[in-house]
C-alpha cells in the first residue's frame, strides 16, 4: 500500500487511504471492454472491483446504495453505447434510473462525482482504462465517503 502523494484532499487521518470503487459492467460491452483493456495490458488502479451484470438495466439503484452503505467511495456503471444495447433498450432504462438515483444521492449530500454512468463498447479497452483511471483520481480527490455508511461497518 502506498500513499498517493499527488492527492491533496486525502483526509489526514486516513494515512494510506485508498478509495474503494465498485464498477458494474454489462456482460456484452463494458465487461468485454474491461477484458480488452486487460488484453492490451492497460493498467488502472487495483481498488476498482468489477461486478458483472447481464445488462446495465439489471443494476438496481439499491445495489449502488448498498455499496455506499458498505463503504464504497465511488460507484461507476458501464453499459453499451446508446443504440448498441444487446437487449435493444436496456441502457436507456439504466440511464433514466441513474439520473433519478444520482439526483437523490445529490440530495443526500453524496458528491455528484462519486457516481458515474459511462458507455464503453467491447472494443474500447483504452477508454475503459482511461475512464477508470480518471474516475479513481476523482474519488481520490474527493476522499472518503462518509455519507450513507452503515455505522456498524466502522466498528
Amino acid at each position, binding site marked *: 500500500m502506498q500513499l498517493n502523494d499527488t492527492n491533496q484532499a486525502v483526509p489526514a487521518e486516513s494515512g494510506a487511504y485508498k478509495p474503494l470503487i465498485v464498477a458494474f459492467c454489462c456482460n456484452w460491452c463494458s465487461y468485454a471492454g474491461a477484458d480488452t483493456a486487460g488484453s492490451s495490458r492497460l493498467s488502472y488502479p487495483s481498488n476498482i472491483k468489477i461486478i458483472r451484470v447481464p445488462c446495465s438495466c439489471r443494476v*438496481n439503484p439499491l445495489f449502488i446504495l448498498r455499496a455506499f452503505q458498505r463503504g464504497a467511495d465511488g460507484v461507476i456503471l458501464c453499459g453499451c453505447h446508446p443504440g448498441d444495447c444487446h437487449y435493444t433498450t436496456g441502457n436507456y*432504462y439504466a440511464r433514466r434510473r441513474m439520473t433519478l438515483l444520482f439526483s437523490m444521492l445529490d440530495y443526500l449530500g453524496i458528491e455528484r462525482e462519486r457516481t458515474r454512468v459511462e458507455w464503453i463498447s467491447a472494443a474500447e479497452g483504452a477508454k475503459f*482504462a482511461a475512464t477508470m483511471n480518471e474516475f479513481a483520481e476523482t474519488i481520490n480527490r474527493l476522499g472518503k465517503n462518509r455519507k450513507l455508511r452503515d455505522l456498524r461497518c466502522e466498528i
Partner: protein
Amino acid sequence: MQKIGVFVCWCGSNIAATVDVAAVAEALGKQPGVVYATDYQYMCSASGQNLIKDAIRDYGLTGVVICACSPRMHEATFRKTISSAGLNPYMLEIANIREQCSWIHKDREEATKKAITMGTAAIAKVQLNTPLTQMKSPVTKRALVIGGGIAGMQTALDIADAGFEVDIVEKKPTIGGKMAQLDKTFPTLDCSSCIVTPKMVDTAANEKITIFSYAEVENVTGFIGNFKATIKQKPRYVDAEKCTGCGLCTTKCPSKKSLNEFNMGLNTRTAIYIPFAQAVPLVATIDPDACIKLKTGKCGLCEKVCEAGAIDYAQKEELIEREYGAVVVATGYNQIKPVQYEEYLYNQSRDVVTSLEFERLMSASGPTAGHLQCPSTGKLPRHIVFIQCVGSRGTACREKPYCSKVCCMYTAKHAMLVKDHYPEVECTVFYIDVRTPGKNFDEFYRRAVEQYGVHYIKGMVGKVEQGDGCLKVQASDLLDNRQLHLEADMVVLAAAIEPDPSARKIGTMLTASMDTNDFFSEAHAKLRPVESPTAGVFLSGMCQGPKDIPETVSQASAAASKVIGVLSKDFLLSNPCIAHSDPTLCNGCSQCQNVCAYGAISYEDQMVVDKGVRETRRVAVVNEAICQGCGACTVTCPSGAMDLKGFASNQIMAEVDAICN
C-alpha cells in the same frame, strides 16, 4: 450451506507472474463454505479439468469457483466440465483474475490482494447459486413469410427447398410485388417480368408453399418455435377454386373507373379485375368500393357471364389460425407520392411523374403498351428531365434522411432505355451525387453518359412551371455556375422510397424493433443483419432498408437459411438465466410488462397462497422461451417480486458486500 471448491489457475505465467496463486488458494480456502482450494498450472487443460472433476467427486462439492481468465473465454468450457462430474452447470462462478487483475497490475502484493477479493466475491455469489436447467421448447416446423414480393418469394422458395412448409401472406390479390411492375432491371437491362413471373409460378407450384393472397396478418402471438398467427382472408367475392382466370368478367363489368393500382393509377380498371395477365393466383377479385352489385344490389353482370360459376357476392371475411416456428418479414416498400413538392408540379401536371409511374409508362404491359408518350398529350416527348433525390437525403419535415439507394441506377436505366428506343429524345439528369456502388453499376452509369449521350448535370431543379405546351424547368448547374432554364415535355421524379405502411403494425405485433424511419432494425448491424432482435423473427428485403434486387435476393436467402436453422431443430434450448416472478409478492402493477423489450411478460389470474390465505390474483408470468434475461423488469418491479436467475438481487448484493468488506 454449499460445499465449495476453489480452483486457482496459473495460466502458465500469465496469472502466476503477478499473483501469488498459492496465497490466493490458501486465503480463499479459509472462506466459509469452502471445503477445497487448490492451484494448478492450466485449469482449462484436460488434466486441469480432471482435477476439478475429481475434486467434485472426492469432496462432494456443490459449488465451484474458478479463478482464471475471463468468463467470456472459458465459462462454457468449465460448465461442461462440472456438468460431466454430475454438478449442475450453473453452480459455477468465475473470478476473472487474468484480464481484470494479473494483466493490468504490476505490484504482486496488490494484485494478490485484489485476486483474493475477487475470489471472495465469487464465493459469496456461488453460495446463493441455484441449479438451473435450460428449457426445451418444441419447434413448429412451418415458417410464415409476410409479403409476397421478390424477397418473400425467394425466402419461401429457399425454405421450401430445405423441406419445410412455408405460408406466404400477401395483402394484394397477387404475389410478385414491385418487381412485377418494373420494366427492365439494371445493370443488365433484362426484362423484369421475364425473371420474376417464373419465380411466381415456381412459388405457386411448390407443394410446400401455401399462398394466402389478398390476406393480411391480423395478429401474431407466441415466441420462437411457437408462433400463432391469425390471418385475415379478405373476401374476393370470387371463389378462387372455381375461377379459371379467363378474364371474361373483366370485359363485361360496367364499372370501369377505378384507378389501376398495378399501373400506378395511370389508367383505369374495372371493378372486377385481375391485376395483370401473369398474376398468381390468376383469379379475379371484386373491388367492393367500385362494384355496383355490392353497392346497390343491382347489376350482377359478372355472375351472368362467368361460365365457371365462380362469382360469390356473399363471400365473407375469414380468419385463419396457423402455427409457425419462425416468421420472416418481407413487407417491402413504396415510393412516396411527392405531393408535398409543389415546386415540382407533381399535383398539377400529368407530365410530371414518379419513376415507378415512368416504369409503367415504359413497360410493354403498361397503359401505353410500352410506347413512350406524354400523359397529357399522348405525343412522344422531345425532352425528359430526371430529378434525383426527391424526398431523400433531407432533414426538412417532408424529407427522408436516408439515401434511397436505387434511384441513381434506375434513372440511368430509364434514360438509357429512352435513348435506346427513341434516340431523338433528349434526356437530362439533375443529380447531387451519382452513387453507383455495385458490380457493373458504375460502368452502367458511364455507358448512359458516354454511349447514349444522356446529359448529367450536377445541380438541382429549383422549380418546374407550366409553360406554353411544355414544362419550364429552372435549375442550377453547379459546375458551370449558371442557372438553367430548360423546356421539357416530361419530368420524372426519383421520389424517395419508404417502408410499406403495414410494416409498423406488423412490427408492433411481432415486438420487432424498428428505426425512426419505420425500417426494421437488425439484431446486429454487422454480424446479424437478417435477424430481428426478437428471436425467431427474420428480415428480408426492403423492409430492413433500401436495397436493389440482387441485395434483396441475397438477404432473402440469408433469412431463409436462418429460418432453416431454427426449423431443423426439434427442440430449442433456452438460456436459463432469465427473469421469474414470485406470485406471492407480485402486486399486478404491469410495470414489468411495460419495460420488457421482448413482450415476454404477461399477466394471468393465478391461485396464490399468501400467509395462509388462498386467493386469485392477477400476477406477472414470464415466458421462459422469450425472456432474454436482461433484467430490466427486476429493477422496475416495485414489490421486489421479479428476480433474475443467475444474477439474483441477493447474489449481486453478496458480491457488493464481499467487495466492500
